[in-house]
């Protein structure tokens, strides 16, 4: 494998993971913003399956239910797009107005997700630094 395609692979993975982390950050921010909205249900991104879907694994695509062997074995669009990997959070103490957001839980996830995002940024930076080092002429 050439240097460039290896770099490409590494960076593509980091890029996919960063995009999903950013999306999860938005989903968690939405939960926090709607902590007082009646009937709002807290959501979260199933990160593992979304990442599998994004990097082309089998975990992301949803198969169609078939009742006959002659049906087409279709697969839904990648779980990374749209609502696919989005799930409702199991409510610990739902409010009387139908809201299931627990701000403390959401804040913990928000902070955790921000840490993961920063780790991925560091990873991307070290890949770029490594490539630059390799490209520099030997002295």
């Amino acid at each position, binding site marked *: 494998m050439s240097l460039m395609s290896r770099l490409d692979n590494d960076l593509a993975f980091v890029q996919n993971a960063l995009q999903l982390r*950013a999306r999860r950050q938005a989903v968690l*921010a939405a939960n926090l*913003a709607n902590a007082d909205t009646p009937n709002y249900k807290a959501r979260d991104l199933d990160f593992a399956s979304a990442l599998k879907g994004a990097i082309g694994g089998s975990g992301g695509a949803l198969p169609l239910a078939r009742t006959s062997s002659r049906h087409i074995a279709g697969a839904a669009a990648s779980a990374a797009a749209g*609502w696919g990997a*989005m799930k409702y959070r199991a409510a610990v103490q739902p409010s009387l107005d139908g809201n299931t957001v627990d701000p403390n839980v959401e804040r913990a996830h928000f902070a955790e997700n921000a840490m993961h995002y*920063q780790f991925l940024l560091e990873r991307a930076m070290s890949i770029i630094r490594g490539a630059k080092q390799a490209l520099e002429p030997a002295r």
Partner: protein
Amino acid sequence: MSITHVFHIAGTALTAQSMRLNAVASNLANVDSAHASTGEGYRAKQVVFQAIPVAPAAPWAQGVRVTRVIEDPAPPRLVYDPRHPLADARGYVAYPNVDVVEEMVNMISASRSYQTNAEVMSTAKDLMQRTLALLQA
């Protein structure tokens, strides 16, 4: 890019919570605005929140919006004070139906939510800056 959605979401939440704080301030300011029991006086106002997507391409990025302001339908608080200029024939003066305890709770809840969303925005700003710093690697 999703990090910018975080800014929009937190922004809508800050606006909505500040409108709620405004309603609380208005209710508390008018708690003693007496009016004749026959006429229409001040009524406690409450905001109604609703989740709205901030970008059409990202339905999962839900911000919050105040859809309408409702007036509390509860009857006014009647106080017996025959010497008051606004007293009716039986000597009662009507005061707005503002529940001070409820408003204080509302105020604390709104200010906590405001703080949380301000923190969310500052975290998003941090992540955005770090992402931009990737160009300097």
